[in-house]
């Protein structure tokens, strides 16, 4: 199996889907001539031409709406946001138009489209450029929300997202683009709404998604050296969310830590904990703990930023606490 970066895995998915269906097109800032702000669309303009790889002005609300209109009449747009922080300007089109069109038209108008781009914090980009938006977007009925953490999942989920007849929010990780992993060639599909157990162990479940899946796997490897074995449940999509996979793991380990990149209040973890208390109440040997960003806007200074972010150390501390080891 080929080892690819997360970036190249995404490019491969885009290329394969553009080849497969001529209704698919990619649109966004710097996606064509510049080859993509993060080079995810590198080479695609040469291969598919300017009608299918479309540079837009800096006009998030405008081009998100163009995507909605094109999807309404049968095209399959992939709208790239340079980052999800900029997509806030476009949320009316994502939330009020794309997510609700099928419902408020009584099933007449499908929205086969993808909104994608990097999400979450990179390094020292400070408050306005370092935010994880999945809990905002997963709140909305009508949207599906993908958060791939590995190159293989990035490829497989993006192909599923492009083929889905619903609006799919696809959250990539700025810090993930250069990470590497084995990626199956050709037709590799990861279904939306199916979690993957990325590490197995009996002592505790760590339920996570996106970039934090990598942190959780590292934690699993480190703790294994101490004789602590954990389940890492990578949700991969946070809407629909794989409640069964969460329950299966927690019913086995009887302890859980929920790890996410975003803030605490109304975060994805709040929802996961709710599922656990409903589905696994009698299985729990300890309260479920959460690891997340500190409840502050992201600071710039290196030391403050490090302190604000969820990380392996905080995750290990939480695992030991639910195992009553500290």
């Amino acid at each position, binding site marked *: 199996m080929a080892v690819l970066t997360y970036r190249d895995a995404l490019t491969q998915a885009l290329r394969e889907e553009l080849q497969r*269906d001529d*209704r698919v*097109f990619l649109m966004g800032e710097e996606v064509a001539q510049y080859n993509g702000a993060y080079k995810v669309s590198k080479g695609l303009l040469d291969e598919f031409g300017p*009608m299918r790889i479309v540079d*837009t*002005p800096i*006009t998030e*609300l*405008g*081009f*998100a*709406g*163009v*995507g*909605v*209109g*094109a*999807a*309404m*009449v*049968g*095209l*399959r*747009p992939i709208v790239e946001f340079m980052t999800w922080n900029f997509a806030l300007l476009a949320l*009316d*089109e994502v939330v*009020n*138009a794309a997510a609700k*069109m*099928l*419902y*408020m*038209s*009584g*099933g*007449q*108008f*499908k929205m*086969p489209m993808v909104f994608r781009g990097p999400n979450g914090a990179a390094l020292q980009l400070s408050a306005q450029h370092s935010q994880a938006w999945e809990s905002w977007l997963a709140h909305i*009925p*009508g949207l*599906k929300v993908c958060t791939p953490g590995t190159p293989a999942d990035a490829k497989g989920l993006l192909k*599923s997202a492009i*083929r*889905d*007849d*619903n609006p799919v929010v696809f959250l990539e990780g700025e810090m993930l683009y250069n990470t590497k992993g084995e990626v199956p060639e050709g037709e590799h599909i990861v279904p939306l709404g199916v979690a993957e157990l990325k590490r197995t162990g009996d002592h505790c479940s760590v339920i996570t998604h996106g970039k934090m899946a990598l942190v959780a796997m590292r934690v699993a490897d480190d703790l294994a050296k101490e004789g602590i074995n954990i389940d890492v449940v990578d949700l991969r999509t946070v809407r629909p969310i794989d409640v069964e996979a969460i329950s299966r793991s927690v019913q086995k380990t009887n302890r859980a830590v929920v790890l996410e990149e975003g803030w605490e209040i109304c975060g994805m973890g709040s929802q996961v904990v709710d599922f656990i208390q409903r589905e696994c109440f009698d299985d729990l040997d300890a309260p479920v703990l959460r690891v997340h960003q500190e409840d502050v806007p992201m600071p710039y200074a290196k030391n403050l930023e490090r302190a604000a972010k969820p990380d392996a150390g905080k995750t290990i501390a939480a695992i030991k606490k639910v195992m009553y080891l500290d």
Partner: protein
Amino acid sequence: MSTEARKAPAPASKRKEPGQPSSNGADAPSASDLAATTPEIRRDLLHSMMLQRRFEERCAEAYALGKIGGFCHLYIGQEAISAGVMSMIRPDDYVITAYRDHGQALARGVSPRAVMAELFGRDTGCSGGKGGSMHIFDAKTNFLGGHGIVGGHVPIAAGVGFAIKYRRGNQVCVCFFGEAAVNIGAFHEALNIASLWDLPVIFIIENNRYGMGTAISRSTANEDVLVRAKAYRMEGESVDGQDVFAVRECMARATERARKEKRPTLIEMRTYRFMGHSMSDAVSGTYRTKDELEENMKRDPILVLHNKIYESGELTEGEMHKIDDEAKAIAQDAWDFADSSPEPPLEKLYTDVYADTTS
């Protein structure tokens, strides 16, 4: 102040007409040729406008009786615009609009029964009772809604124009919105994109002079809304929206421009709404005077058309009454259909949230 007295750009006939000395050759038909009417077309226009009027009078009645809930924005006073515009486009063209959408839907040919049933919240409504007054959708007539956020659908129209271009089609997308939408970002972003990318979209500002209760003079730094066309290197026209023939001529130029030159147009149609912003607000007395309302009602678009037809002698008073009676009968039939239709079954609460299909 009457509609005509309002400070406005020069009438269309005196403005430079970029579409007319066109690159399409000397034998291309003029806008007035394309918009020329026959007695049959004139009768259809009157019928469309009467139907909208009589239908919405019943909407007001149904709202008062509690059969229609939520917000309900009536189009009464503006019917020449919808009738004129729809009469100049093809069945394969697209229409998208804001929340004052009943009249436009009817003029486009959406079933009056399906529209009334939607307003009554019934299973037989065009959106199965899930959309209501502000969200009339009809795939059969390419009627793309019914959108409730001011300006939000204007970029969507650009997207429909993009899809037409992508497929090398020669349809147009007509997008309606009120004059208050010209101050919102989505409008500007959409106009820039449509002009930059040569998209066949006709943006129609229905300038009824009030965004809810705020007069245009209190909301808009430059009341000449067509400067916004210039700002985006787009052709713009201002037209008397109470005169259905003027609306048709203007649309003839805009559709030719969209189909042949692949260029968008911004049109201001000057009009006046005879009802409140929605059913829940007073017709006059707060933000506009009764005198102003009455002055404007003298230019009721139906009256304007009626008088022209009557003066021409092609329809007798009796024949015109018959058109009115037909309109009333269709509105009554729509009411009866809606009133006797079932509510949506509860299991439909959960359908249409997601499509269960993939490509």
